[in-house]
């Protein structure tokens, strides 16, 4: 046969044939809305305990955890970079000047992988963080930037504001609802593998070192 088969029609036709009579859009929406979601949506943990929980999870992943007050971010960044022996960091667009200490070099990055590969690390904010799983969620937005930024450099310092931390995964999704089409990355600890004898090894292809700076009210 010379004619080209229409695979789209064939697949959709085969599905319909297997399922029988199709339902109306409204009926499908109604059925979807009726799915029982009895799982925990929100956690009732008070702020101090929530932050402690988040820190505990991060430490388990082998991430570095620091705290600073709102007016002490730059000083803490300086302290962390000194401890890590970093001369400066690459930045996405939109990082507030008050995060950046004197005496270090901070440059807004181009997005060339080969150049990023040579930079000492990257400084970003985040959209939301999940205490229960020790995750930070990055999106293509101000102070977070394109995905390549938090991927190619070997070191990532992430600034998380206390009010960005939620307890559960569903709470995080509620906050992401309006921006769900943006490129989004959930980061839970430094990159890792357990492919060799189920031993968790830190640092395969993503950043091998992750520090999280939690910013609290004074």
């Amino acid at each position, binding site marked *: 046969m010379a004619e080209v088969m229409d695979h789209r029609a064939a697949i959709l036709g085969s599905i319909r044939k297997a399922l029988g009579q199709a339902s109306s859009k409204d009926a499908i929406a109604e059925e979807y809305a009726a799915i029982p979601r009895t799982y925990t949506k929100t956690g009732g943990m008070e702020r101090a305990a929530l932050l402690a929980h988040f820190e505990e999870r991060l430490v388990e992943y082998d991430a570095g955890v620091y705290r600073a007050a709102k007016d002490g971010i730059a000083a803490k960044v300086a302290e962390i970079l000194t401890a890590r022996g970093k001369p400066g960091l690459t930045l996405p667009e939109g990082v507030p000047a008050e995060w950046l200490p004197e005496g270090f070099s901070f440059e807004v990055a181009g997005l060339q992988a080969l150049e990023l590969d040579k930079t000492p690390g990257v400084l970003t904010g985040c959209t939301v963080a999940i205490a229960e799983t020790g995750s930070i969620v990055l999106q293509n937005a101000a102070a977070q930037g394109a995905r*390549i930024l938090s991927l190619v450099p070997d070191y990532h310092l992430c600034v998380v504001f206390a009010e960005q931390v939620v307890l559960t995964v569903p709470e995080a999704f509620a906050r992401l*609802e309006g921006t769900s089409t943006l490129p989004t990355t959930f980061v839970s600890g430094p990159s890792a593998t357990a492919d060799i*004898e189920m031993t968790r090894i830190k640092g395969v292809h*993503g950043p091998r070192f992750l520090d999280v700076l939690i910013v609290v009210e004074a």
Partner: protein
Amino acid sequence: MSGVQTQDGTQWNRQDFPEAAKEILEQSQTRKNVQHATNVIQGKRNKVVAELPDWEDLREAGAQIKAHTLRHLDHYLAEFEANCTAAGGHVHWASDAAEANRIILGLVQQHDAKEVIKIKTMTSEEVGLNATLEANGIAPIETDLAELIVQMGKDRPSHFVAPALHVNRAQVRAIFQKEMHLPDLGDRPEDLATAARTYLREKYLRIKVAISGGNFLIADSGGMCIVESEGNGRMCLTLPDVLISIVGIEKVIPSFQDLEVFLQTLPRSATGERMNPYNSTWCGVHPGDGPQEFHVVLLDNGRSPILADKEARQTLQCIRCAACLNACPVYHQTGGHAYESVYAGPIGAILTPQLHSMKEGRSLPYASSLCGACYQVCPVKINIPEVLIHLRGKVVQEDQATLAGKFSLWNIGMQAAAFLFADAGRLGLAERVGAVGQKVLVSKNGFIEWMPLMLGGWTQTRDLKALPAQSFRQWWAKEKAPSAAAKNGRVSHG
């Protein structure tokens, strides 16, 4: 049987499960590796699942979301297609493996790529994509550490979360030493991971086309979600100019919001982590961020007809966490290769034959003791034992429909058994005849160690307790039935 070509050119479905399993059972190192790995993952899984008081609610929601999507699969696929296209993606449809290969090869050739980087994808393995690419002078480079080990070792994956769990560090070292030309490589897992990082990093930074699978297609946003650990996935999703994702049609979910369920159940079930290191979601093409050309190939390849079977449809709910493999006592003993399929373990035992319209993998529904461990751990509540029995029924019915099958010893034996068990009187007679007739088979220890013909399959690996001189039913009739009858006011049969 006509198997599917894999990476190394070997065939899947070369032989039935019992023969393949026998080969594996002789490889004691492989068995040790499999048992160690599955024990470790299972231990971790049980611990993090126990942490969530709402685990059963999450399972139920996950199962219902998936079942609902399957009931309206064409609706959600069309919605995904529309939204993905609007976001700048290209959606392709492939009824079978040949079409998927044709589409992907065409796209790769259009970009003149001689090499492609790949994220672990079961669907690529299912359609034999690597063999197609290689035959056309294109080198597919696996970037998942375990897949790289399998590819360099000219081996086959044995587990769909940890495809190289059947090899240990000494074996990995030997493979890397040879293939990466690193004679002095150490055998600590850190050394091996570092070798892979160095070897692949240059490739990520240079190669322009990537191929991936996908964990979820999101209908309402037109997006995709990929879950991974190492960052190799992010490299492939972010750095190349062109990304091609090949995804089974059953992977669609209605809404981005539904990920709040699956991103809790999948990592905990798959690797025993509260969250895996990286989850990525994106929609089509985003200017200045990631590949500026994005293709999704929606693969049917035997999936849509499964929807017609109401009992077996749940097979397509699978999110490929592999928890059922880790929990399965049969998988523990044999590892993945015995299943002779891309999809191993309990889910493989029900999925493989159905993907082939029951024409291949017909021994797989029998590769289970029906203990139910797989159902218990499944995060989307697929009742695998129920489907196994259902498929066994199908195999038997189809066999009976052929003349050779009708007169096979199995069928005659099973029909005879059905005849006996259907009537208490006949069964009672058989028990009395059996107790006398078995005398030639019973050893001094009171066990039957050998049985004739196909009954031998049972006694090859276990001894059978001989029938007692008096059956339970005989004893009941004599001792208990009169008083029970008096109590209940009715007479028992038999």
